[in-house]
């Protein structure tokens, strides 16, 4: 059931609050908003074309599409690792084109990112990896130790907190990466193929973890091409195909 297609259309106002769609929500409240975003690498063809979408507070959505459709590129735009060639991206009300380098860390701290390849630091223990965002904030270890341990126990890594990532299994690494993304209580969690390296039962467990996080107030976006995973949970789907976006509410 296609509810809305955001392929083309006039650019939305970039500033201020305006009435949104059928849900009556103020669209200015969106955590992240894309308006006619296009991106090309160098002089090549556009990888993303006229992408318009929004991620609302406390929402849950899948980002899917065939391999090479631009999911990872879109994810990189979402966590401000790339800048669009055209269009507007608003993150927490900030136009990313005008965000200075000094402002980026504060915005990124409000976004939790789980990478497909985990990006854990191999020379730090699981505990230290999960505590890294808090350490970056300059917090004293005595102030966050209990929180990190609680979170590690919550994701089932209580017994593995002293272990270095190379010793962890794929699922354990994935959960450590998720814990690291959550430790600063981000308003939005972006997960790139979070179940790409785990078996189906663990994938389902991770999905339940994301659902529970969403219930607790975190907006969640999961990039995946695992149709089976998406079939297990009825959520908004952002489908990327040939650089364009279709949204299924």
């Amino acid at each position: 059931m296609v509810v809305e297609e955001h392929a083309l259309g006039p650019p939305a106002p970039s500033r201020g609050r305006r009435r949104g769609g059928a849900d009556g929500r103020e669209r200015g409240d969106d955590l992240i908003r894309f308006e006619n975003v296009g991106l090309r690498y160098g002089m090549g063809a556009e990888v993303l074309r006229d992408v318009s979408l929004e991620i609302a507070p406390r929402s849950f959505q899948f980002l899917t599409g065939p391999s090479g459709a631009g999911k990872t590129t879109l994810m990189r735009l979402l966590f401000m690792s790339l800048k669009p060639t055209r269009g507007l991206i608003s993150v927490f009300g900030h136009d990313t084109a005008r965000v200075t380098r000094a402002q980026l860390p504060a915005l990124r701290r409000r976004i939790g990112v789980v990478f497909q390849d985990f990006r854990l630091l191999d020379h730090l223990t699981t505990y230290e990896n999960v505590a890294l965002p808090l350490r970056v904030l300059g917090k004293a270890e005595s102030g966050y130790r209990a929180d990190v341990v609680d979170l590690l126990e919550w994701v089932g890594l209580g017994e593995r907190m002293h272990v270095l990532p190379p010793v962890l299994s794929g699922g354990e690494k994935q959960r450590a990466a998720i814990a690291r993304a959550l430790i600063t209580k981000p308003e939005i969690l972006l997960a790139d193929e979070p179940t790409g390296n785990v078996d189906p039962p663990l994938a389902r467990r991770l999905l339940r973890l994301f659902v529970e996080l969403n219930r607790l107030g975190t907006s969640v976006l999961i990039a995946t091409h695992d149709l089976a995973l998406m079939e297990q949970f009825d959520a908004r789907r952002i489908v990327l195909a040939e650089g364009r976006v279709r949204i299924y509410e």
Partner: protein
Amino acid sequence: MARDDRHDPTRPPPPSPRDLRASLSSSIGISQGRSGRGGRVEPHFAPEFDAAAPVEAATHPFIAPSDVPLATVEVPAAVVVEASGAPAPSPRRSATRRKGAEKAGRRKERPRTGTPETGGRDIVPPQAVAGRALVLVVAIMGFLACLAVGGLALVSEAARDWQLDVSREVTIQVKPVDGVAMEPRLKRATEIAQSTPGVRSARLVGESEGEKLLEPWLGSGLDLASLPIPRLVVIDLADPAAADLTALKARISAEVHGASVDDHSIWAARLRTMAGTAVVAGVAVVVLMLTAMVLSVVFATRAAMAGNRDVIEVLHFVGAEDRFIAGEFQRHFLKLGLIGGAIGGVAAILVFVVADFATRTRGDALSDQAHALFGGFSVGWSGHLGTVAVVAAVAVLTAVTSRRTVLGHLGRLD
């Protein structure tokens, strides 16, 4: 796309809150049961979990209101979002949070088996920084810079001594003049010298002593009486600054025929020039060495950054500011600089000590000559303090260079 199978009659009935709690806990890999080992949570994975269970329909905000009291599930306070735009939590959820916070507080007070004591391991892996090679480079540069500073101290101290010796001695030269007796003029010159303020003593150099002075040039066994050889009066000044040499020169030239005063100002000027040149050369050598070391640190920092690109990316994605990343690298390089500088400084001090012992007078001609020239290879406190200053400068330069290199590189990434 029909995916809403919430009302599928074949599906099991909605679970009770207790079942939900157990189900959710097992789904995220934790048993809520406590083991007998200090009450620690024992994680385990459920053998099978039905991810499509109706719990999702009850919890997802886009599907249905959260009317099933899942809030009773214990979750760590660490993951509860406190976004300003988020709806206010229900009283029951708040109570659960408070309960969780209280529990966490109790946990903090309780000693925990296996809780990490520190989170302060280096974020930039030490082995990723070209540690040993850089320490060696810094040590060599530091050693050479310390040697240069020590040599500088030695030369400038010796030059100062030479200058002091030269300026303390003034010579009155009385030339033979036909028809004028030498002895009265020598006597008068000595009297004038002794009566001049600031003069400690005035001594007439005897004829035999004068001949000995000429022996190296004219050879021995010559009858010098037939040669018009000038005679000397050597004046030892008590205080070169207080002595009125201008008045002495005026009186000598006025009252003693054929006499002149040599205050060795030419030699003193040459010594000053030589000492100044040595100081400039030494400073230039130190500056060049420190510059080479700074460039080495720049290359090493760039290499370390290239080798830790993943670490830097991760730090950026978790919200690290550039100065935090620069601080991590700076800490590394400060440590390396201190170690390298200390090695170089200690080695230089050892060299000074050995050289000091080796050049002390042993009664032989060689050591006597070396000692006469340099006064011993003792760099003194100024040399040792200079060495410590070089070590500190090396460490600080290393740290500051790495920090600026990192900040510059990160700035260019934008």
